[in-house]
């Protein structure tokens, strides 16, 4: 057996780890363990000097296994694997011990956290001894892309790809493209016409020879893997099979159902309407109350269903600016009316937004505040002798005084939610949802449009509430990512797959029954099973089910995990 020469690197992560874990003691203590040639601590292992240190040590000390104890492998495993590669070592000769997310950040006793770090590293060291070189495999990429959702995000991605000469299949469940933007009149913050913007984009899509649009269609289940997916959709009552290399999910938003906030009487009080309904009023061109009169007082209420533990805890990010858009449109359509904007905080980040706020506040508009954490405003029908149709009662935030505001029309700034069917979509394409039911990106900062499923991207408001510019940026970013893989011609796929040892396999075919991807088949001729490593996604279920131990789950083999357990439990209690 080859000699194991292990290098261990314990990261301080500034003070993130070092404040709770005695990194120097851990690193020096490890020198006692067998096979450890180098053991060091360093301020920031992921920095260039940190990585260079590993590369130099690999070369100078002939290291053949590396352990880094630092943040979560979900954060930097790839970074360090690349460093190994740069040093000429197989990237899989690496293991990470998570002493930040799972240790220094969650514990309060330095001695205990230090002991835990030491144990986690000992586990990683025992495991890495059994690591084997794995060769990257790549498969050709089908240059077509499937886009689910034909709102502004889906449309933007489709055009970006098709204009680069690549085939796009655009699936829209409604009868028309355009999504929410088609329902808008003007757009904040620059008050441009939504229709001018979206209509010609829709036309461009419909006319594009490389974009095949499937209206009134939905996708159920996608099969395959990055570069080579397939699905069957129902279109015009016929089953159509599509093959594509990448997927963009752009299923968009659902406006919050205002009737859930009973205080506002939506559904009961006819002159209380939602922002989306008011967009239609604006598109129709005449602003009238339900009984056909011109309103003298129009009130707007922010944060409907947003920033509230009873509904959605998050901010919907666009409604403050949409409210200001409405204020401006109301001011020009009804110059004599009183406009009352009732908000909790005015969120006007983004290009042109603070400017819109400051311009609007010069326009003789009544801005009032309520406390979104206290009781929400209450809307009631005014009585006959009141000079208005509705009365809004609430406690003014700064004075703390209860006030009553007259209104003939109230516009509720409903927030954004994920669609009810987000879960089915997530399942169909194999991605996850966060607690608020938006799809999760691979990394919130460094990889905001990819997902943990290679080849599947999430863009627009299905990923989180956002405005049109942000939705379009994400869409085009995802398209660019896909174009890059198409250009490369091939993508590397999972190498940590399963493998059957034909000498041990008894042909019982238990593994075939448990594989969720039908990646295993039985050879009548050889009387043993075999894994198709292109289809296998490396879940490891067959490995833990095979009664003879014939299956090796690469990189998570039995011996690797059993050794990790031994390592974790190997060190003395006191330290």
């Amino acid at each position, binding site marked *: 057996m080859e000699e194991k020469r292990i290098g261990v690197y314990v990261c301080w992560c500034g003070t993130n780890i070092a404040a709770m874990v005695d990194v120097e003691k851990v690193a020096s203590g490890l020198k006692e363990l067998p096979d450890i040639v180098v053991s060091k601590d360093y301020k920031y292992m992921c920095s260039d000097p940190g990585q260079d240190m590993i590369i130099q040590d690999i070369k100078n000390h002939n290291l053949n296994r590396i352990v880094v104890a630092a943040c979560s492998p979900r954060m930097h495993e790839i970074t360090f694997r690349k460093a190994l590669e740069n040093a000429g070592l197989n990237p899989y000769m690496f293991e990470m011990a998570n002493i930040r997310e799972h240790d220094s950040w969650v*514990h309060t006793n330095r001695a205990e956290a230090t002991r835990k770090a030491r144990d986690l590293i000992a586990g990683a060291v025992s495991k890495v001894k059994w690591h084997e070189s794995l060769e990257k495999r790549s498969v050709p990429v089908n240059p077509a892309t499937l886009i689910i959702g034909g709102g502004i995000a889906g449309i933007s991605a489709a055009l970006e790809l098709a204009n680069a000469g690549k085939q796009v299949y655009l699936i829209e469940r409604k009868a028309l493209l355009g999504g929410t933007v088609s329902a808008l009149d003007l757009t904040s913050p620059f008050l441009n016409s939504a229709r001018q913007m979206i209509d010609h984009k829709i036309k461009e899509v419909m006319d594009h020879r490389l974009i095949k649009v499937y209206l009134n269609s939905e996708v159920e289940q996608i099969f395959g893997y990055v570069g080579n997916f397939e699905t069957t959709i129902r279109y015009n009552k016929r089953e159509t099979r599509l093959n594509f290399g990448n997927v963009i999910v752009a299923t968009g938003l659902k406006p919050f159902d205002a009737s859930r906030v009973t205080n506002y009487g939506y559904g009961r009080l006819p002159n209380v309407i939602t922002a989306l309904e008011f967009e239609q009023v604006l598109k129709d061109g005449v602003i009238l109350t339900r009984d056909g009169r011109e309103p003298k007082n129009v009130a707007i209420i922010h944060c409907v269903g947003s920033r509230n533990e009873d509904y959605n805890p998050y901010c919907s990010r666009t409604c403050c600016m949409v409210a200001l858009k409405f204020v401006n449109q109301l001011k020009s359509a009804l110059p004599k009316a009183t406009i009352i904007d009732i908000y909790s905080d005015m969120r006007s980040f983004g290009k042109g937004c603070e400017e819109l706020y400051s311009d609007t506040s010069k326009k003789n508009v009544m801005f009032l505040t309520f406390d979104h954490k206290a009781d929400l405003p209450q809307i009631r029908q005014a009585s006959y002798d009141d000079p208005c149709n509705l009365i809004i009662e609430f406690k003014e935030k700064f004075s703390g005084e209860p006030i009553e505001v007259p209104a003939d029309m109230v516009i509720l700034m409903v927030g954004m939610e994920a669609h009810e069917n987000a879960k089915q979509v997530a399942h169909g394409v194999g991605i996850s949802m966060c607690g608020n039911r938006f799809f999760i990106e691979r990394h919130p900062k460094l990889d905001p449009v990819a997902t943990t499923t290679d080849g599947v991207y999430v863009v627009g408001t299905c990923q989180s509430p956002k405005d049109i510019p942000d939705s379009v940026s994400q869409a085009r970013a995802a398209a660019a990512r896909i174009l890059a893989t198409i250009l490369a011609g091939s993508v590397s796929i999972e190498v940590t797959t399963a493998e059957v040892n034909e000498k041990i396999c008894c042909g019982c075919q238990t593994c075939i029954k448990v594989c969720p991807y039908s990646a295993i088949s039985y050879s009548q001729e050889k009387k043993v099973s075999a894994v198709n490593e292109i289809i296998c996604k490396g879940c490891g*279920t067959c490995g833990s089910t095979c009664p003879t131990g014939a299956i090796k789950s690469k990189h998570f083999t039995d011996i690797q995990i059993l050794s990790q357990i031994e390592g974790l439990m190997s060190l003395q209690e006191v330290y």
Partner: protein
Amino acid sequence: MNENPKIIAFLCNWCSYTGADLAGTSRMKYASYVRVIRVMCSGRVDPTFVIKSFQEGADGVLICGCHPGDCHYHEGNYKCLRRFHLLQKYIKQMGIQPERLRLEWISASEGREFSELVNEFSESIKALEPSQIKESIETFS
């Protein structure tokens, strides 16, 4: 009572490990007895991993996977669940209290649930005597 229990937790990469990471990024504090082993899916947790953990002296073993229906590989957690019931019976026969082995579902967004689970499981393991399995195996062999 066991003041210093040793607990091994097998977390699936996609939901539970990410949930535990979230507990970290949200700086939720919890008991420090748990040592995590990452597997791609709870379906990978081979019975021998659990037995080995007890043999090496673990006082408790926790397995966490995605909620039913949410497994990244569709159904690995169902396979795990089925195996879990058999395993509990099996460890009982070995003389290990079945409550030393727990299976729970933790999603990627459930950092709080993860930290609460660790605290609660740690308390329940602390309430038991230290596991004698390692010693009894050593005397046998």
